[in-house]
């Protein structure tokens, strides 16, 4: 009896073991199977990138369908303030147009796209792409090289965007013979915003500021004549120094010096001269807590009258506007960064589509929508940026944006911004930021920074 029992038990145990082994085998097979699928996916992804003819035939068959099967998943970094208002307006406009589409718009963190870019990179590396994501076009797309969808035929040609978008924006949306992005708006970079009351108190005529030296004199006058800190600067991250330095370089040595720098032929003397000026500003005229504040806090200092001026992209306009008691031409005003009149320092936000797209048709419809007048006006008014279409009626934009829009359409030069992905590859941009991060956050080491900057672009 006992033996019998135990053998019975053994049978059960065997079943158990068998089940366990089968389970484990299935698990292992699942893992390797997944791995296999992953490589296959990537291969087809790179296949996509080499030949675009396949794409065309596919579209011809299915673009007529009006029912949407897949969910549109869009990742963006506009998680607060004016950015959030802008993207909400854009989404509302889109859902009005496509009420039946299942959409999933996700805001991933804020702080200068750090979390957004990390999430996109991780998901693309894991071969788990989303429908589209917000990112800078231009050299920045290098980050996602080999994993981008070509929208040239389905979106750009289909909608005639090449004729209605600024030619510069069209160029920036081209990447390795593909057009994976549609621009949504442009911020101007060469701005100097100022608190009118403080300038008045210090006796400064903003329109007379036409060079970096004039700016330095004005900052000195504010320092001497008022209790206000002359300039607000945010140095919690190095990009603010990088972009301000780029403005100073362009102002002192001209657009050509800047262009040479981003193209890898830096003039070290010009680099040093600009760094010296920036050092003077950072050592004497900025708030003491600069090293630990972000640009939003810095902007607040101008609003509250604790700082006289700030240099930033015109996203601070979106911020200023949120304060009802701080109005354009009344409490604050704007000039192009001294010495850069007639130049529009170019920044572009765009919506990019990855290859292996999980919702091809939905993505195309969405990318087409991003380029429409309706979308560009809905998004840019709250964002404080300007549309990249050339056929927008400026009266549909706010006063400040209408002025910026006019500058966007007729300036003498449009150097692309270095701190925001357009001018150099992400790696070089990272090296430039590190140059400032390591050597120019106080104490300000001009020579070391110059060496690091020159090395960064020469690589």
């Amino acid at each position, binding site marked *: 009896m006992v033996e019998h029992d135990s053998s019975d038990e053994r049978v059960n145990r065997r079943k158990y073991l068998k089940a366990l082994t089968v389970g484990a085998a299935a698990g292992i097979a699942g893992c390797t199977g997944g791995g296999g699928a992953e490589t296959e996916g990537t291969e087809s992804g790179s296949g996509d990138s080499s030949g675009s003819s396949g794409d065309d035939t596919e579209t011809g068959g299915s673009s007529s369908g009006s029912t949407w099967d897949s969910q549109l998943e869009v990742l963006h970094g506009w998680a607060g303030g004016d950015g959030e208002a802008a993207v909400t307006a854009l989404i509302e406009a889109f859902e009005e147009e496509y009420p039946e589409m299942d959409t999933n718009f996700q805001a991933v963190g804020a702080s200068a796209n750090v979390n957004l870019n990390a999430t996109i990179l*991780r998901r693309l*590396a894991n071969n788990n792409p989303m429908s589209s994501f917000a990112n800078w076009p231009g050299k920045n797309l290098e980050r996602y090289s080999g994993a981008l969808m070509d929208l040239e035929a389905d979106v750009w040609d289909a909608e005639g965007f090449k004729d209605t978008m600024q030619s510069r924006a069209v160029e920036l949306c081209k990447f390795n013979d593909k057009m994976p992005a549609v621009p949504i708006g442009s911020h101007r970079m060469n701005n100097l915003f100022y608190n009118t009351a403080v300038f008045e108190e210090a006796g400064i005529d903003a329109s007379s500021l036409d060079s970096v030296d004039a700016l330095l004199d004005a900052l000195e006058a504010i320092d001497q004549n008022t209790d206000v800190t002359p300039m607000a600067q945010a140095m919690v991250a190095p990009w603010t120094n990088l972009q301000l330095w780029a403005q100073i370089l362009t102002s002192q040595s001209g657009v050509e010096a800047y262009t040479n720098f981003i193209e890898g032929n830096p003039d070290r003397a010009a680099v040093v001269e600009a760094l010296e000026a920036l050092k003077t500003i950072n050592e004497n005229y900025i708030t003491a807590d600069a090293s630990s504040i972000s640009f939003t806090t810095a902007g607040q200092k101008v609003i509250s009258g604790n700082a006289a001026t700030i240099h930033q992209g015109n996203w601070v306009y979106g911020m200023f506007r949120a304060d009802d008691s701080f109005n354009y031409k009344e409490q604050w005003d704007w000039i192009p960064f001294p010495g850069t009149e007639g130049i529009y320092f170019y920044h572009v936000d765009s919506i990019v589509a990855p290859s292996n797209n999980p919702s091809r048709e939905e993505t195309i419809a969405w990318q087409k929508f991003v380029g429409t007048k309706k979308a560009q006006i809905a998004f840019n008014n709250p964002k404080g940026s300007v549309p990249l279409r050339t056929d927008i009626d400026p009266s549909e934009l706010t006063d400040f944006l209408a002025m910026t829009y006019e500058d966007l359409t007729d300036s003498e030069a449009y150097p692309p911004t270095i701190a925001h992905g357009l001018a150099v590859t992400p790696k070089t941009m990272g090296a430039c930021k590190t140059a400032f991060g390591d050597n120019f956050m106080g104490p300000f080491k001009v020579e070391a920074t110059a060496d690091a900057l020159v090395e960064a672009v020469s690589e």
Partner: protein
Amino acid sequence: MATHDNTEQVTDTTDEAVGWESKLRYFLNSDFVRSAPYWGIPFVLMSIAVYGGIGYNFAISFTDYEGLGTPDYSTLDLEMYTQALSSDAFISAAQNNLVLLVGFTTICLVLGLFLAVLLDHGIRFSEKFQTVYLLPMSLSFVVTAQLWLWMFNVESGILNLVVTTLGFNPVDWLGNPSIALGAVIFALIWQFSGYTMVVYLAGLQSIPDDQFEAARVDGASIIRTYLRIIVPQLKEASVSAAVVLMVFALKAFTFLYALVGRYRPPNGTDILATLMVRRAFKFGEWAYSAAIATMLLIMALGVIGPYLYYQYKQGSL
């Protein structure tokens, strides 16, 4: 002799007769296999999730994997390691890590011991003090980082309020690279000294009062009593507290990330963990980051290893 031979023969023959089926049955009947469903499943899950991850990281660190795409395992070399060891950023991050590890752990232990000794003297409200000291430990890094960001603010922070009231110039706690690491260590000590205090307090309370009395009878001063009699008995507590603190020091990434909200911490406070995450998720340099991760793991093992060995020697492992 003969019988002995005989038995051997018998077993031999049975072995042959039994054959592989019975052997398998014996094997399957063993405790090892019978308990397999209980330890096997967690073992497999652990292996895949933790050690599989470590192994994969290790493998990637030998490749040149970068950006999107798949790693190429055909050429494996130590290039990423040599590249890291010759990079200034890596060296300074490793140095900062070491300073953080040693400075933070030592001061936490000394301060925690001091507080524990004070509380052990049966002062009034000692339980309440205990709670007060331990409370920061229960807060998330995210909360303490934000709190200290405000405390360290140059213009409005409370620390500079004290400094300027005393007649000194305001100090840029987080902005000055030569002070920033000290400021971070200070904040971490504030958070963790309560923990060491509790560990020591438990150790102190387990020491019988007789020893204090005996020491007093022998005429030893209080300081001498503690240094010669009490503290040596707290070795166990010190070791376990030190290991926990060191591991926290290696993981200080959370605190630094929460402090600035980005992958680049204040200048002078870059540690291996922040460097690793920055290289990986900002620049997609997977192989390089994997090499840093491996070296970080070796550092952590360097801390944990001796402790495990110590525990093993003590017979408690």
